[in-house]
């Protein structure tokens, strides 16, 4: 007890423990870097203007992936059209209006629940409600609606956090100057929370852009060598296309597969990085 030995042991334990934790963190992070770097390395050669702007041919073994890129772009926009207004409004409700009662708790449980539902179950729901019951067919509209309900929880929770971080004193001052609640929200709270809201919206849409399961039976086309004509048309999409060419087509050239994966992660991670930049710039500029 009085010797120095236990002390030595304690330090040794700590050293071993810290090394183990460092190793674990490295095991988490290094594969991510390897994956991204490898896809850039293996797919970089395939990505050129023709690949980005051309139509697929020869059973997708040749040509470009333009319809899939444009399709994912349309789906992301369509998702935004529904989920952004509803999501921000719901966040405003929770942050600015909702009383602390049983109904509000129910709304919160509903949001938590929406965030946990498996993506393929969203696909089933979209098939049941939008494709069949409302007769929108397998279309951009059905797929966008399905994706937008799936992205709602992300948009709502990040936007609510951004709204709540606006100091309460701004609201009190605005009210004391004779502004109504909505005037206060529109002129003070929303503008101040905007960078945080944009970050949340992009993170939500990023998830929608990368998802496959919800659009499998609601709007994704296996092969459609043209652009969709309307929102009632099915469309190709990058994630689904990657799934198809890596599992359904025999003797698919690796380069096209890696090229498609690269374009998809550029699309998705580009949004992620953009959101991160907006967030950190807004934090640096914030004055309160």
């Amino acid at each position, binding site marked *: 007890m009085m010797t120095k030995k236990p002390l030595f042991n304690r330090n040794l334990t700590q050293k071993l423990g810290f090394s183990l934790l460092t190793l674990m963190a490295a095991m988490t992070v290094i594969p991510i870097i390897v994956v991204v770097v490898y896809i850039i390395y293996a797919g970089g050669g395939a990505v050129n203007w023709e690949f980005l702007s051309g139509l697929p041919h020869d059973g997708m073994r040749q040509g470009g992936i333009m319809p899939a890129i444009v399709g994912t772009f349309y789906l992301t926009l369509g998702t935004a059209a529904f989920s952004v207004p509803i999501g921000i409004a719901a966040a405003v409700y929770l942050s600015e209006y909702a009383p602390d009662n049983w109904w509000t708790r129910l709304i919160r449980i509903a949001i938590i629940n929406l965030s946990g539902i498996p993506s393929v179950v969203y696909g089933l729901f979209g098939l049941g409600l939008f494709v069949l019951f409302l007769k929108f067919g397998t279309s951009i509209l059905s797929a966008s609606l399905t994706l937008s309900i799936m992205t709602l929880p992300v948009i709502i929770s990040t936007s609510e956090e951004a709204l709540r971080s606006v100091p309460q004193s*701004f609201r*009190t001052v*605005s009210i*004391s100057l004779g*502004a109504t609640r909505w005037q206060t929200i529109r002129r003070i709270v929303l503008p*101040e929370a905007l960078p945080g809201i944009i970050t949340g919206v992009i993170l939500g849409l990023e998830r929608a852009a990368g998802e496959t399961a919800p659009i499998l039976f609601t709007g994704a086309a296996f092969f459609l060598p043209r652009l969709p004509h309307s929102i009632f048309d099915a469309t190709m999409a990058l994630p689904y296309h990657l799934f198809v060419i890596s599992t359904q087509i025999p003797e698919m050239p690796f380069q096209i597969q890696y090229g498609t994966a690269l374009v998809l992660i550029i699309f998705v991670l580009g949004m992620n990085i953009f959101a991160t930049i907006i967030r950190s710039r807004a934090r640096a500029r914030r004055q309160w």
Partner: protein
Amino acid sequence: MNEKIVIENLSLQYDDGTESLRNISLGIPENAITVLFGPAGGGKSSLLRCLNRLNDLSEVKTMSGRIWLDGENILDPKTDVIRLRRKVGMVFARPVVLPMSIRSNITYGLEVMGEKRRSRLEEAVERSLIQAALWEEVKDRLNDPAIALSGGQQQRLCVARSLALEPEVILLDEPTSGLDPISTSKVEASLQEIKKNYSIILVPHSVQQAARTADFAAFFLQGELVEYAQGKTIFTAPTDKRTEDYVTGRFG
């Protein structure tokens, strides 16, 4: 002396049981500075927040009594609170400038009211900044963000912001608590200037400030109004023992 506001048997209790008011009756004169003072938690701020119904935002458990402003009971549920708040301006303890330019801080209240005429807005900016003794310091940089002003300037901007709405009553809740002595005296001087046209109700941040500024003064202790008299009387010859103990610094 004309009474601008008459408070009748006002009682108030918050949900969480904090600071409350018990049966307050008080008449507040026009064109004078009325000071509400006393130890913290005595109900001064709560009373202030009743006068422009800002308490609507808090969790109030019970409230009874009447507050007459120009013969109208403002606690009546049918009162147009937006109009009331334009008539009763407020300045808070910590200067809270809105996250916009100096000019927009002043025009904000008018704009939410629906005023769009530029000439009226410009006129209000100059007039209220002059009244708040800030015009000379900021007239060349009205488009700068208000947050760039010093603490004292920010607080005078807050005063100007309430004045822009041409209210009839101005409530000030410890407006100089965060300011240095020089800024404090500037704010106090501008109060003496504007009281000619307004009824001012001030919660001071010290007994000294109360004594310096008060035309009339009311001493609050634990939610009760202990004594109410002219400023020169209450600080020199208080009638109640508790008031005397407080103003002579025996507690608080």
